[in-house]
């Protein structure tokens, strides 16, 4: 909250540019973005699009060549990190510690009250399912287990903001499912998740930011109501029934003289009603597809 009583954005980047020495193009170029309380932001982009650089700039590991970064209105990132938890891209290192030792140090480094330390460590290790492994060396852990420990460590101070850099990279299916489920429970008030995997962003985030060659191409609300759709392939005669369809048709795609495909946004119940109508009028059902427009939008903005 500032002096005028208005809420600061949780994270704000204004005109941020960063060049790496020896690189002809800036890693990020004139980026401006805001992330507010309650926003779960997915930073989308190919490898080298600048996703990790943005997170490292927010953490203050890199200094911008131009522009300004604030966390909850504070431009001193060394101090502002008190409200941020960060999980780096590659969960290697810290091998000589046990999860308990790691969280113990992490807790102390945030200067938190010593009397709550044990309780907080137990709470975080249990939340990520690593309580049983608390006294084993990280060295012997799988990548997924390491990632869980790092997430517990990043959340030990109960931060408002959680930054995750490619959190599912190299994880097996079980570890991925665990992590997705954990993130769906929203362990912080605001999250920025950088990944090239759009399905992860679709699953977890409510805002998507498309980065391409260091530039922000789009900021999209990831509302399932507007992104998810069904496509039904049937006879062209269905057009005569359009007024009876329980949904609004977004697009018609004629395929050939015998087939047409139409797309609509709606729930599984809406789909059932559409299928019943087709059955009632004895129209053939060739194909039903469930899809999400995020991939289309991503490709559209990246190709622009």
């Amino acid at each position, binding site marked *: 909250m500032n002096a005028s009583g208005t809420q600061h954005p949780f994270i704000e980047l204004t005109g941020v540019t960063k060049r790496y020495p020896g690189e002809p193009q800036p890693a990020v170029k004139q980026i401006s973005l805001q992330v507010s309380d309650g926003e779960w932001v997915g930073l989308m982009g190919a490898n080298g699009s600048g996703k990790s650089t943005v997170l*490292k700039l927010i953490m203050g590991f*890199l200094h911008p060549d131009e522009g300004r970064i604030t966390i909850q209105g504070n431009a001193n990132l060394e101090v502002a990190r008190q409200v941020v938890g960060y999980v*780096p891209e590659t969960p290697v290192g810290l091998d000589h510690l046990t999860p308990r030792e790691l969280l113990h140090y992490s807790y102390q480094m*945030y200067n938190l009250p010593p009397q709550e330390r044990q309780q907080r460590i137990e709470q975080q290790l249990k939340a990520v399912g690593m309580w049983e492994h608390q006294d084993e060396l990280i060295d012997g852990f799988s990548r997924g287990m390491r990632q869980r420990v790092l997430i517990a460590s990043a959340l030990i101070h109960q931060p408002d903001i959680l930054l995750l850099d490619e959190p599912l990279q190299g994880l097996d299916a079980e570890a991925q499912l665990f992590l997705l489920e954990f993130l769906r429970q929203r362990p912080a008030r605001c999250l920025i998740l950088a990944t090239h995997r759009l399905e992860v962003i679709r699953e977890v985030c409510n805002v998507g930011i498309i980065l391409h060659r260091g530039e922000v191409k789009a900021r999209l609300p990831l509302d399932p109501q507007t992104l998810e759709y069904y496509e039904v392939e049937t006879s062209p005669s269905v057009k005569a029934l359009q007024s009876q369809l329980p949904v609004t048709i977004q697009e018609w795609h004629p395929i050939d003289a015998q087939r047409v495909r139409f797309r609509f946004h709606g729930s599984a119940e809406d789909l059932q009603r559409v299928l019943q109508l087709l059955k009632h009028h004895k129209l053939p059902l060739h194909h039903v597809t469930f899809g999400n427009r995020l991939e289309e939008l991503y490709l559209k903005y990246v190709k622009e």
Partner: protein
Amino acid sequence: MQAWRAYIAFQWHHYFRTHRYLREIAAVVIFGIFFGGFLSDAHGGAGVWILFSVFAIILSSMTAPSLFLLERGTTLYFLIGKPHGRRRYFVSKIVLIVLIDLGILLAFALVYGLRFPSFSYFLLLPVRLALVALILLQVTGLIALTMAYRPTWTWWIFVWIVFGGIINKGGVLPIHGIGEGYKLLVFLLPPLQELTFLSTSLQFDLLGWIWLGLALVQTGLFLGWGLRGFYRKDIVQ
């Protein structure tokens, strides 16, 4: 204080469990062989402090790089990514390097004191150790500069340390006229030889105080510049 302690403890833990102490152990073993000669003397003397001071320079030159280059990747982000992470990381590293080296030197100094027991030896031990600690801090501060700015400067820094240790700066003084102004360059060298002399003789004459003051100022500047450089450094891993 809790956070500072955690940084020092973490880095000690890391140093120990990743076996970074092996180079120091090698140095200690080699030094121990030479030191054995001093122990076999019939009488003790303050001259041993020349040996301790030179050993301090060598030890610091080994401990500082191995500790400064210890953390990478996730480990480095873990440390830097906390509130005031850069300052605590940098300062705690220097504190740890000085404490490790001072601990080793203290052990040798105690062995020597027990070999030639004397009340005055133990009475003056804190003063001599403080001067040796200043040598350690100055060398560590210099090496820290390379870590904060460019690791490729390391060779130049070592040349600077060696010249600081071997050149008798008092010998070029006094300065007669502007033509000998170049002699002022000796004040740019770390007064390691002079600190070694002070720790041995404990003769705090005017020149002694000047060298001590210069060492304190230089050390403050090195640490300040190092911290400033580390604040500005991009941590790219």
